[in-house]
């Protein structure tokens, strides 16, 4: 039996949105291929929660209970066993980070083809092909799998289907982990660094990156955001550096937003950042490097020094708004 196996990531009692997108996508493709979409969950997942993957089209959920959560290699062991026992031809992952590590490890284990950052999956001649943007999104390449295929989606690439009330069958599997998979242990998971700030409800976001130069540089963004009536967002580079709270990070391992205005200052516009805000209605970028990738997809780009522009822009906004 062929089929598509999806890894469904869960945390604190809920499935990851990108995983639900992955299950929805797999179900759609399975229907076209004439096979079934199944899911894998690990660790502490109740029968009820696991069965809800049926709402998005998974007919069966394989659950490996005693497997540590948050690490990739134990999941590789589980998925390799499930695919081996059940003959799945494809494995699919929604965007994020763990899926990249699991998918690549699984490809090595099964000697299968793997494509990451996938934005579209197509069915051709009874097989799946995967489209992936390359070279800073300047071209799109299509992967053809010679044998089994592993598809790792880009963040938000797969849409979540409207949930039905179908429930998936839950089957427990027993998997012997590889010795090396047990040599990494989670000490703490999901630590929130910095304050918890709500940026998802803001219509206007002023985002700052490494180009702000120092943590205090964010004061320029805060002043502009206040004048515009918006909130402040950040890139991973500055969050990793401890300049700004993780709760404000946009992108692959941060939040996804679609505000009316996203004004990016001192941000290069890396793809892992772009995927978190590309559906914003208006994108404005201020960067001193005219070759910065962000100018490729901004609606208004200003080539210049943010230290000169931001303070004056803030004053002008205040004047315009009469405050």
């Amino acid at each position: 039996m062929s089929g598509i196996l999806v890894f469904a990531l869960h945390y604190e009692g809920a499935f990851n949105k990108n995983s639900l997108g992955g299950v929805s996508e797999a179900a759609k493709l399975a229907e076209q291929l004439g096979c079934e979409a199944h899911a894998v969950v690990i660790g502490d997942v109740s029968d009820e929660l696991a069965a809800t993957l049926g709402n998005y089209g998974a007919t069966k959920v394989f659950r490996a209970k005693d497997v540590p959560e948050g690490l990739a290699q134990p999941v590789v062991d589980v998925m390799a066993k499930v695919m081996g026992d059940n003959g799945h031809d494809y494995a699919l992952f929604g965007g994020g980070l763990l899926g990249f590590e699991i998918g690549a490890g699984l490809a090595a284990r099964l000697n299968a083809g793997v494509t990451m950052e996938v934005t579209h999956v197509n069915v051709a001649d009874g097989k799946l092909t995967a489209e992936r943007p390359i070279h800073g999104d300047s071209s799109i390449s299509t992967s053809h799998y010679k044998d089994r295929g592993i598809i790792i989606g880009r963040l938000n690439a797969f849409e979540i289907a409207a949930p039905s009330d179908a429930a998936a069958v839950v089957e427990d599997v027993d998997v012997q982990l590889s010795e090396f998979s047990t040599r990494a242990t989670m000490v703490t998971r999901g630590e929130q660094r910095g304050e918890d700030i709500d940026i998802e409800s803001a219509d206007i976001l002023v985002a700052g990156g490494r180009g702000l130069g120092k943590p205090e540089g964010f004061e320029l963004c805060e002043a502009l955001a206040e004048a515009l009536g918006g909130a402040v967002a950040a890139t991973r580079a500055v969050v990793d550096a401890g300049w700004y709270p993780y709760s404000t990070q946009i992108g692959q391992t941060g939040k996804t937003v679609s505000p009316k205005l996203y004004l990016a200052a001192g941000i290069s516009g890396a793809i892992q950042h772009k995927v978190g805000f590309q559906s914003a209605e208006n994108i404005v970028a201020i960067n001193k490097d005219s070759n910065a990738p962000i100018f490729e997809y901004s609606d208004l780009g200003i080539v210049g020094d943010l230290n000169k522009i931001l303070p004056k822009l803030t004053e002008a906004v205040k004047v315009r708004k009469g405050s």
Partner: protein
Amino acid sequence: MKICVLVKEVPDAAVEKRIDPSTGRMDRSGERNLNPYDTHAIEAAMQVREGGEVEVDEIVAVTMGPSSAVRALHKAVSLGADRSVHLSDDALAGSDVVATGYALAKLLERESPDLVLLGQQSDDGECYTIGAVVADHLQMPSLTQVIKMDVTPGTLRCERQAEYGYDTVEIALPAVISVGDAINEPRYPSLKAIMGAKKKPLDAVGIGDVGLEAERVGEAGSKVACGDFKPPPQKAAGEIIEDEDTNETVAKIIAWLDERKLLA
């Protein structure tokens, strides 16, 4: 302790990247350089050595790539590696991620490292997954995007950001770690180190030397074929303002925002 750092030669970011439409492979012409993300991996190795928690006997830069890749190795050595290993063979051309990771793992087996370090991504491949492939073949624990790494004899304590925040993971050595660019600020090589780099041992090997199965590498051994290159959906080009007179620039931005009713 022996550390191997995987480094790659990539097209210089300032130079335009393109795929050769007839072969589907990356056009390798033009300026090339050491993948900038890999300098963080070399620096991480240097900091383990200088940290004094463990004794580092050797730091070895390892690459797989065409003959031009020796320049990336020289750069890696100028940044602190003691010697380098270069796997180059016509049979490797066109290798996909899995084939590349397999070949690198075979190469690393000869070195028996206690720690393998990689960069967070290659500037041209942008897969951020070679580490996971290498680790599975070497049967070593692994983690990617690590931004803090504390070493004690036999173990690593690593921090990295994943989907739900920061994770701290303890890993037993030997291990494969890819480091995020926030882990450190790479040093600049001294002039002396640059001059001396070409004199450090460089071991050039082919696929016969590393005992890999030829049918698992190269275009034929790859499990995925890339093709049908097409341009992405075109978005209307944005407006660009060069900031010369900032007052004027700001007035233009205000007008632009006003037009879109963003200043209401």
